């Protein structure tokens, strides 16, 4: 069992409030037009619950990962841990969220790769050394351009 951690880190109250209020208006039997309030003691309770749950889930996922003789906790470990802790009901939504997360991560790295490719193709091997600052480059002047130019000299 892991040693207990003393911590000052908390989930920000304002975000918790937003999350809870959004859910309250969609709960069965609730009036979606009404502005429900949360007592400050209730909010504190949610804050503690969030912190403890994160530690609890992390420790369990860590155990799952260790038992499988791996070093890095994966999303699958988290899903297994949730089932082990009797929170199977959230695994469905979590899996869907993970799909979106992976798709967006793929697109981000695709964009990054395309950006790099464009930079590389834009450089003509026989042109004059261009000082990019002449074209208004602000801040970081691309190192790769400078490197290639140095080779041309």
């Amino acid at each position, binding site marked *: 069992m*892991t*040693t207990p*951690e003393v911590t000052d*880190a908390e*989930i*920000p109250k304002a*975000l*918790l409030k*937003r*999350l*809870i209020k959004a*859910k*309250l208006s969609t*709960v069965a*039997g*609730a009036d979606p037009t009404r*502005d429900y*309030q949360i*007592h400050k*003691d*209730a909010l504190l*309770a*949610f804050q*503690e*619950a*969030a912190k*403890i*749950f*994160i*530690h609890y*889930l992390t420790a369990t*996922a860590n155990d799952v990962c260790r038992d499988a003789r791996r*070093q*890095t*906790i*994966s999303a699958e470990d*988290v899903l297994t841990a949730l089932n082990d802790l*009797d929170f199977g*009901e*959230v695994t469905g*939504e979590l899996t869907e*969220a*993970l799909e*979106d*997360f992976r*798709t*967006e991560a793929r697109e981000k790295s695709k*964009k990054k790769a395309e*950006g790099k490719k464009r*930079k590389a193709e*834009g450089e003509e091997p026989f*042109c*004059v050394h*261009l*000082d*990019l600052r*002449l074209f*208004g480059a602000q801040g970081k002047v*691309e190192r790769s*351009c400078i490197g290639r130019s140095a080779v041309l000299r």
Partner: protein
Amino acid sequence: MEAPSSAPAAEPQFLASGTGTEPAQPSATGDGPSTSKAQLILTLGRVKTLIKEDADVKFVSSEAYFAIAKATELLLEAMTERAAQPMLQSGRSQLGYGDVAQAVSSWQSLDFLGDVIPHKIPAGVVLQKMLAAKAAAAVA
């Protein structure tokens, strides 16, 4: 500074990376940021801080960080749903501590929160119980 000689007009694309001159590309899946399920309300950074407080944890994939954050959100929402029941049944519009304590005690999976979010016992009731226990002990 000398002017460039026969330099071709430098396309902004040279400098485009990170300057936002690229046109926004439509998402291949058709899910825009507003409908994506991967959006978080809680700050991922804060969740990461809490995760890393566990000394036994070595490496965590970015997917796992997200999964833990999202799972926490889903749990909080589930708790909210349950806590809302006593609130709505009494016709109140403010979620109170007691509602949350009720949700914790009635959902077995939340036993790990039992000591943290107990039912509050009014001081008067505690005092009565103590006096009663004392009286019972005196008689025995």
